[in-house]
């Protein structure tokens, strides 16, 4: 892409600085004014409260990060000429974009913002622990800092940073036009960004933020021990993030299968993309498990269920659910960095990757499945059976084998090459070294007897910081330097890069290596008074300060290089992966636009090389791709357009506001209105989204691409099946949790005592009859009968509504007998499980309303009725779930 820009770059640099103030700048100052007022109010509210210092420091963090964002994003509208904004403003571009590159940049910048938040919290903790008996933070502040540091760094910094690169480079590496569902991609981004703000906002609410550690061990997270809307909001934000991640995983899986460009067979997929595929497969199956755990936790806090407060479920159930997710999560943050290392090593060693297939097989056949079989090693001191502990010990030690294969392959790759010691390569090597140290410590932790000392100690802290900060972040830094020329068209400063590498490596080891010697110091203690712990802690704090400070070299380097760096050649590293090939002149030629006003340039960071788009002619949404291509190819000036949509940001904003209201429900006068406003916004944007679809405002035609192994499965169907796979895990977790509680409960009502079988049978028959009705609707439209389809959809809708009615009738019956979720374990599991299922039914009903309206407007034809088929699959899946739920609560 920037091959073409390059000729333009000189001109762009000379472009006059904007004289008139653009509207975006006005908006910025308006936001600034709001923030000043909000800050003043917050400071006033929190002045003199116990958490005041933490609150104030968070204000400082947010302000600092906003300014950082301003200076990064501010660039385009200063550097570019007036022409640039004739069609689209800077603000609209970044807020409404659905382009994968733009969203990739947004992910990266937002991840750096959250790294700043989490990093400041870490510096507070290190300051507190620098000397014994310190009083810099009080225990509550420290617990909040330790929890939010962990959560933010793992979920809002590490993974999103990796997915920023994935967004930008996976489509390029597989020659796809974009991700399979661009609007869902934007939705993922905005829910991610807002969910983090919710978690940070929770600091300011009564009760403070989550303060039970990132592992959220129950029952410390219950209302009894962690009261207030603050923690609830934190959990709600976390849940929203899981939703974002699930959407994102489905999007990437479908993209990788169905959107590969012509000629890109599986064997031609570059390593980074492979590792992203492995990561999203793990995400698809790991996160729904945590999602149901979070649902249970939030239900415990808001609806009075007793999943984690009763002793039947309780702490050990949470341990199981959390770590079943938690261990795959370790690899979810690690594998993208491994992918980056696999890209960087061969390019700078000038030698092809050794054992590419061995690496792929080791990862996909061993790491991915085994990561779901090792979670018990986090529970070696719990009273689970010793035999099970030994089984988990075996599988945990076994999972180090594929990593051995990978590391050896890397070492053989660099042996005998011609190594160019540039910054990306150095960071890749640093990542490997640190991973070896951290990984070997991991084998120590896999042993039950050694856990008798290490569990819950700083040895664990040292281990996972070596693998997460060291291996993952250094690997992603390598990716950052490696792809920086591609993203900005400029070279970074090599000296600053090497300085950043050297200081990072030294201070990182100074920070974390002493922790290996603190084998008997408990994690997460606010202060200590043991002489032998003093020196390692002091060294770690010094290392922490240096490590934190040197990260600004990276930021400074990038900001400076974006502005003044030497123009980058097309392929500065002589790499041979597709993302370095010159891109097509027209990036996206499809009918995804409403009006010409929505045409926006799409590029990487867009600094100094924004293409002039004044010549962009109006493009009718109905024109074919070919026509669009010919009309817009006016001379060398490139018009790169992308589909924009206001829906994702508004929808995620609405959901976030609604969650804020939900968390504050105990203050009815405050919580309810906020909830109502947020829900209204969310519902309106969902309706708007449906309206867009109904009118084909935003449509991406499916290209003829490589799709093996799903040559006959459409993009939408693959997405639907991925969603169902993740939903299977969600319900499996819920039902396993129910079964766990049931086995542990001293008593459980026999069939037909609590829930009348007759009632259950009627509703079961009704729901099971709606599946054939949904099939008949599909059958009718296949024959071309819209009327038949509409009638059968009507029947399905009626049956589904009656079913939900029966469920609510039974709820009402129970309530009238004073049976509430908090009454017993049996009722807790019943209300929760049936409630989640009834919500699934309700979503199906809403989809049917959409289908019926679209059908009435003639939206479905004999050849075009994919949505009806997708709905049928989803609806039957919900029926199939009910079979198990019915059996569990009514028959067993």
């Amino acid at each position: 892409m920037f091959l073409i820009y390059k000729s333009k770059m000189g001109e762009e640099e000379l472009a006059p600085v904007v004289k008139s103030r653009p509207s975006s700048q006005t908006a910025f100052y308006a936001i600034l004014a709001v923030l000043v007022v909000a800050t003043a109010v917050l400071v006033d509210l929190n002045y003199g409260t116990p958490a005041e210092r933490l609150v104030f420091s968070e204000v400082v963090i947010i302000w600092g990060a906003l300014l950082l964002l301003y200076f990064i994003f501010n660039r385009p509208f200063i550097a570019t000429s007036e022409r640039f904004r004739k069609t689209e403003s800077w603000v609209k571009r970044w807020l409404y974009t659905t382009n994968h590159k733009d969203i990739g940049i947004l992910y990266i910048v937002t991840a750096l913002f959250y790294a700043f938040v989490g990093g400041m919290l870490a510096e507070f903790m290190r300051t507190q622990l620098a000397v014994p008996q310190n009083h810099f933070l009080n225990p509550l502040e420290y617990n909040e800092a330790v929890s939010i540091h962990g959560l933010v760094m793992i979920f809002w910094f590490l993974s999103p940073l990796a997915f920023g690169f994935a967004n930008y480079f996976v489509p390029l590496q597989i020659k796809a036009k974009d991700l399979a569902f661009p609007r869902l991609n934007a939705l993922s981004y905005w829910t991610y960004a807002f969910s983090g703000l919710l978690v940070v906002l929770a600091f300011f609410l009564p009760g403070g933020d989550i303060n039970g550690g990132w592992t959220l061990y129950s029952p410390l997270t219950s209302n009894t021990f962690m009261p207030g809307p603050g923690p609830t909001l934190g959990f709600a934000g976390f849940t929203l993030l899981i939703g974002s991640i699930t959407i994102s995983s489905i999007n990437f899986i479908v993209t990788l299968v169905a959107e590969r460009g012509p000629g890109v067979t599986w064997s031609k997929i570059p390593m980074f993309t492979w590792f992203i595929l492995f990561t999203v497969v793990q995400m698809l199956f790991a996160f729904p498990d945590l999602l149901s755990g979070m649902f249970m936790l939030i239900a415990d806090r808001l609806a009075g269920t007793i999943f984690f407060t009763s002793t039947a479920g309780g702490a050990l159930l949470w341990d199981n659910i959390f770590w079943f997710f938690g261990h795959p999560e370790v690899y979810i943050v690690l594998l993208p960095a491994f992918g980056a290392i696999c890209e960087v090593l061969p390019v700078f060693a000038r030698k092809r990757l050794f054992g590419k297939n061995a690496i792929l097989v080791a990862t996909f056949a061993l790491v991915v499945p085994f990561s779901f079989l090792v979670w018990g090693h986090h529970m070696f001191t719990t009273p689970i059976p010793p035999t099970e502990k030994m089984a988990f010990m075996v599988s945990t030690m076994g999972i180090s084998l594929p990593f051995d294969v990978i590391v050896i392959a890397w070492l053989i790759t660099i042996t005998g090459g011609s190594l160019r010691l540039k910054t990306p390569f150095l960071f890749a090597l640093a990542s490997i070294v640190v991973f070896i140290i951290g990984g070997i410590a991991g084998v120590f932790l896999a042993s039950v007897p050694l856990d008798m000392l290490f569990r819950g100690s700083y040895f664990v802290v040292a281990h996972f910081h070596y693998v997460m900060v060291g291996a993952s972040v250094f690997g992603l830094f390598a990716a950052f330097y490696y792809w920086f020329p591609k993203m900005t068209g400029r070279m970074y400063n090599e000296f600053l890069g090497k300085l950043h590498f050297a200081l990072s490596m030294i201070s990182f080891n100074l920070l974390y290596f002493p922790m290996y010697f603190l084998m008997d110091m408990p994690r997460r203690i606010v202060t200590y008074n043991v002489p032998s712990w003093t020196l390692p802690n002091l060294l770690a704090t010094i290392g922490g300060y240096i490590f934190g400070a040197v990260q600004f070299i990276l930021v400074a380097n990038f900001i400076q290089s974006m502005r003044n760096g030497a123009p980058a050649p097309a392929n500065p590293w002589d790499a041979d992966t597709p993302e370095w090939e010159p891109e097509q002149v027209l990036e996206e030629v499809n009918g995804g636009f409403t009006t010409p006003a929505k045409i926006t340039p799409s590029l990487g960071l867009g600094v100094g090389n924004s293409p002039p788009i004044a010549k962009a002619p109006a493009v009718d949404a109905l024109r074919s791709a070919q026509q669009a291509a010919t009309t817009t190819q006016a001379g060398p000036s490139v018009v790169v357009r992308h589909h924009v949509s206001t829906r994702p940001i508004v929808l995620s904003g609405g959901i976030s506001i609604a969650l804020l209201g939900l968390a504050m429900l105990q203050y009815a006068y405050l919580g309810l209105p906020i909830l109502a406003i947020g829900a209204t916004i969310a519902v309106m944007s969902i309706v708007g989204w449906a309206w867009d679809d109904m009118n084909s405002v935003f449509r991406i035609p499916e290209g003829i691409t490589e799709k093996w192994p799903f040559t006959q499965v459409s993009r939408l169907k693959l997405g639907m099946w991925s969603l169902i796979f993740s939903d299977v895990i969600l319900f499996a977790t819920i039902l396993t949790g129910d079964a766990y509680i049931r086995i542990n409960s001293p008593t459980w009502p026999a069939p037909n005592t609590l829930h009348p079988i007759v009632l259950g049978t009627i509703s079961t028959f009704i729901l099971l009859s709606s599946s054939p009705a949904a099939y008949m609707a599909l059958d009718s439209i296949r024959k071309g009968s819209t009327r038949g389809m509409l009638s059968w959809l009507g029947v399905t809708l009626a049956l589904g509504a009656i079913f939900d009615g029966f469920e609510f009738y039974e709820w009402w019956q129970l309530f009238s007998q004073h049976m509430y979720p908090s009454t017993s374990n049996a009722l807790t599991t019943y209300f929760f499980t049936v409630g989640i299922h009834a919500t699934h039914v309700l979503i199906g009903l809403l989809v049917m309303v959409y289908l019926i309206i679209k059908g009435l407007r003639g939206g479905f034809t004999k050849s075009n009725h994919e949505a009806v088929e997708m709905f049928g699959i989803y609806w039957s899946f919900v029926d199939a779930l009910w079979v198990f739920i019915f059996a569990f609560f009514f028959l067993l």
Partner: protein
Amino acid sequence: MSHYLTLSAWVLQPPTVVNFLSEYNLFLVLGIGAAVLTIGWLVYATVKYRVKDGSKDLEMKPSGKNDNLRAWLTAVITIGILAVALITAVQATQFLYNAPPGPDLVITVYGFQWGWNFTYPNGYSDIGHLIVPANTTIILNITSKDVFHTLGIPSLYVKGDAIPGQWTSLWFKVTQTENITDGIRCYELCGIGHYDMVANLSVVPQAQFQEWYSSVSK
């Protein structure tokens, strides 16, 4: 740690300590060996094969198929190391869950926010101080009254979770009398008093213990 090299020092150590240290030392030797080999290889290769900045026209070399031997060799070594580690770890684990027969004392431990309650068979209970006789197998049955705690005695290398509604058992046997201030700690975040959830451990001669124990009997 040099005194662990003499056999007599090992004999005097409590059995849980010997169990831990023999396992730990084995892992340490294997782990440091593996780390030195791999990191040494990496540093050596980096130094040996580096080229000057600005070297031009470097073709991509093939991946080095003749290195298969080296790959298999390292894989076999790693599997061997892991197998040794695994076999010893399984043995050491079985040791942990089989308390030796003989005279024993069963003490019930309740964790609470924020402290430890030790209840003896005679009904006497103490908060914050565990007194046990030497050369006796001590069995701790641990549970919690409120949230998740973890009882750990680092000097004896034993640890067990205190979970509401669940019972965790562990055993240890101390050979020498000693007094350890804050010898028992909580190892799982349990609220704002987590850092201060400590208890003292006193090991006294059996006769002295019997005297004390009968004096507190109800």
